[in-house]
């Protein structure tokens, strides 16, 4: 019976091999795509946003064929999508499922919120030490000021 229910149909079709990033806040889908450089790869990328989610209300999902991510690579999306789950698919089967976690160190992807910071005046990649992961607090290695979650702007 469940197979006949059209509402159960996948909104974003299944992939044979690759990575699914699920439970992305709907507003962050395009941000995550940019962070992972998915706009410029040759692999098949399927994504959906503003999908209904029991847990989150609205969510986004991204499926990338034949591409697997290192922890370090994927953890940087934790700043934009702390709730995201990473699902590794091989031969249509889920072989691994894990949550992203905020890294100890954040490079390049976040702007320093301090308008007087040198990184906002010269072409310098930013560097932050993560002081707190739950309530995100990033300490700029240059100006030593702390960028908090609500002030985060991605470069």
């Amino acid at each position: 019976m469940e197979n006949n229910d059209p509402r159960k149909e996948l909104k974003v079709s299944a992939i044979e091999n690759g990575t699914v990033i699920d439970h992305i806040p709907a507003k962050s889908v395009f941000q995550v795509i940019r962070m992972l450089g998915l706009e410029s790869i040759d692999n098949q990328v399927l994504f959906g946003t503003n999908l209904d989610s029991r847990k989150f209300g609205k969510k986004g999902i991204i499926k990338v064929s034949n591409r697997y991510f290192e922890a370090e690579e994927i953890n940087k999306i934790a700043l934009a999508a702390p709730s995201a789950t990473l699902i590794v698919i091989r031969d249509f089967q889920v072989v691994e499922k894990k949550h992203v976690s905020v890294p100890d160190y954040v490079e390049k992807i976040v702007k320093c919120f301090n308008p007087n910071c040198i990184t906002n005046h010269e072409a310098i990649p930013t560097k932050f030490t993560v002081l707190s992961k739950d309530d995100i607090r990033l300490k700029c290695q240059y100006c030593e000021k702390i960028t908090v979650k609500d002030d985060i702007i991605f470069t």
Partner: protein
Amino acid sequence: MKNRSLISINDFSKEEQIGILDLAESFEKQPTRKILEGHVVANLFFEPSTRTRLSFDTAVNRLGGKVIGFADTSSTSVQKGESLKDTIIMVSNYSDLIVMRHPKDGSARYASEVSSVPIINAGDGANQHPTQCLLDMYSIRKTQGTLENLDIAFVGDLKYGRTVHSLVMALTNFNCRFHLVSPPELKLPSAVKMHIKEKQLEYTQYTELQDVLPIADIVYMTRIQRERFSDPIEYEKVKNAYILRNNMLKGSKESLRILHPLPRVNEINVDIDDNPKAYYFQQALNGVYVRQALVTSILGVI
């Protein structure tokens, strides 16, 4: 310490800081020695300064070294749009050590990443001013005989004053008690207070200057800076909040000394200048000895 940059006071351990103060003492006894002959120090001041620049000049000149550099950017390629990176790389080809002041926060740390010679931060925006911090520590130790267990009052702009932030952080290593006097809108930032709490030390916040004068060993006055206020009305409200006058010092400790990073505007009345408790001009002179200690340590000639 040879070839190390000094960007933030925390770049040096407590022991290293004390080592610099001890060495500075020996320079106070004998400030003129020819131990920097053949060395070139670049003084790059992208922002105006009187004391810091001149005291570095004096420090190096008295030791026989040569100083190159600029006191403002009007005659340099910075005016043509040269980046900080290019300026630093180029000057590090010409010199053995770069002393720099720059209006942007974090500029000195960045310079230390691109420079092939060590950098001494002489003030980066509102961030750090570690050489001022060391000369403040030197002045406190010299006048009180110790840095331990003192009652230190900080007065004025505790929010934006970079010298206050560095000095509070450094003194948390010495078990001092902190008395913080400021208008409510210029309180010490919570990030700095966190350092005090981490060391389980006491701090008390006041709005009346008079309250701290009887208990303080050191009163560290600061200027409330007009340029830190986006709203001129806010500045007008607080600019005359804390003015120290000679008659207010009655009942203060005999050993009390008044420090100020200078320049002062009106926060220390000139009638205090002749009081033996006034120490700010001597404090500025101590800057020469501390900078001699730093330059010679970093160049590895001592």
